[in-house]
């Protein structure tokens, strides 16, 4: 898909539109920078929009978070941006109970400010 190719290129440099989130088991998730910046921790690691990144490759390594949890987080980014607050029909985001507890702990343990 053309979008994928552009995405990799878009991870470089301080003005990159995309960032890479890497889980503990080596999966790489590429998310839009503005979505990922809704999380306070990621914002601290990467610097705000337009600022030069502490980590210049715009990657964040999550050494304690497995892919089954990180993939749900990325889904939540899309879900949150897709349905703005005033929309009247917000469908449910399914979270399997098996990962829900782990997801809750990882999100809270890392003091992730996902509002």
């Amino acid at each position, binding site marked *: 898909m053309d979008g994928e190719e552009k995405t990799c290129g878009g991870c470089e440099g301080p003005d990159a539109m995309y960032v890479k989130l890497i889980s503990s088991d080596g999966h790489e998730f590429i998310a839009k920078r503005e979505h990922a910046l809704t999380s306070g921790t990621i914002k601290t690691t990467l610097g705000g929009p337009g600022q030069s990144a502490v980590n210049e490759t715009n990657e964040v390594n999550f050494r304690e978070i497995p892919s089954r949890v990180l993939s749900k987080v990325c889904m*939540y980014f899309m879900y949150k941006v897709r349905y703005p607050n005033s929309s*009247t*029909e917000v469908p449910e*985001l399914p979270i399997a109970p098996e990962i829900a*507890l782990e*997801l*809750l702990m990882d999100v*809270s343990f890392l003091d992730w400010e*996902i509002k």
Partner: protein
Amino acid sequence: MAAFPLIRSRTIGELLAPAAPFDKKCGRENWTVAFAPDGSYFAWSQGHRTVKLVPWSQCLQNFLLHGTKNVTNSSSLRLPRQNSDGGQKNKPREHIIDCGDIVWSLAFGSSVPEKQSRCVNIEWHRFRFGQDQLLLATGLNNGRIKIWDVYTGKLLLNLVDHTEVVRDLTFAPDGSLILVSASRDKTLRVWDLKDDGNMMKVLRGHQNWVYSCAFSPDSSILCSVGASKAVFLWNMDKYTMIRKLEGHHHDVVACDFSPDGALLATASYDTRVYIWDPHNGDILMEFGHLFPPPTPIFAGGANDRWVRSVSFSHDGLHVASLADDKMVRFWRIDEDYPVQVAPLSNGLCCAFSTDGSVLAAGTHDGSVYFWATPRQVPSLQHLCRMSVRRVMPTQEVQELPIPSKLLEFLSYRI
């Protein structure tokens, strides 16, 4: 009194009761409104013994087309545009059902389980209900319960056992077509509609009128509330009483579980809505409708602020309440003041639509009013909490090896 931002809810529409053919002082009330579990129909008791069944999506479209003016009493609701899926099934039709007596309660029952409930074994019975059966149960003034087929408007069953007004009806959400009726004769009865409406059990324990009942989302617990401050929880596998919840100072008239079954909301004439933890009986939150909060003596009498109805929204974060001070209030469970209000005179009952986007409220003159519910994307933490609490009661949550702050959050104690 603390100042807080009062946002007025957006009105969506209204359905006005037809003019009565004769001037009657009572009998016009709309005691109950209900939405079908799959969102296809809306039912309201119009007063004067009739129930109107309206296809919900057509109704919504009419509201959008005509602004907030109502479109009532047209015996055939024909939309000017084509219906693209009119192929196999008939287009849902509007029905007006004459029940023969004042209708006090309504409930939709579907043989298809609502999502996220536990699986149920559907056995074959003589009076077979097809896979797609949608039923409407109506509870009447004389104690009878009539079961109607929603698609055809025909009477299917007549359940006779209660000796007094059937004040509330509710179906189990797991698709088993178990119906529970609550009556002024101080009992609740459990009926199995898959078995020809056989009455399976009588639940005794109330000392006075039973006003309302509600199933937990996994169909394992039933809550019943009634006069003399009664709030009871019943185990629906063994039909025994689990516990009584104490705290209200007056008759308790409405109850509703949150979508994950972790919270129970009850509304009372003592001007309060309480949010309980049904697993251990603790009161977690209190939503007052009178400031300053009334003393127990005042709360226990005629205080002009009776709360008539309460309903949990589908996101598990909002609660709607109807009170005699002519207001509908939307509350968030993490704030103690309402986030939105709307004016409503003589409101008697309310219900959220199946997708949770609309609140319907019925009034004393037989009409229904609709508002858009406050919607927002819940936090990821809340979504996880609901997913966990759907399968885990509070006692198990307390045993989890997690930090105490998370424990409190999971138990809704924050």
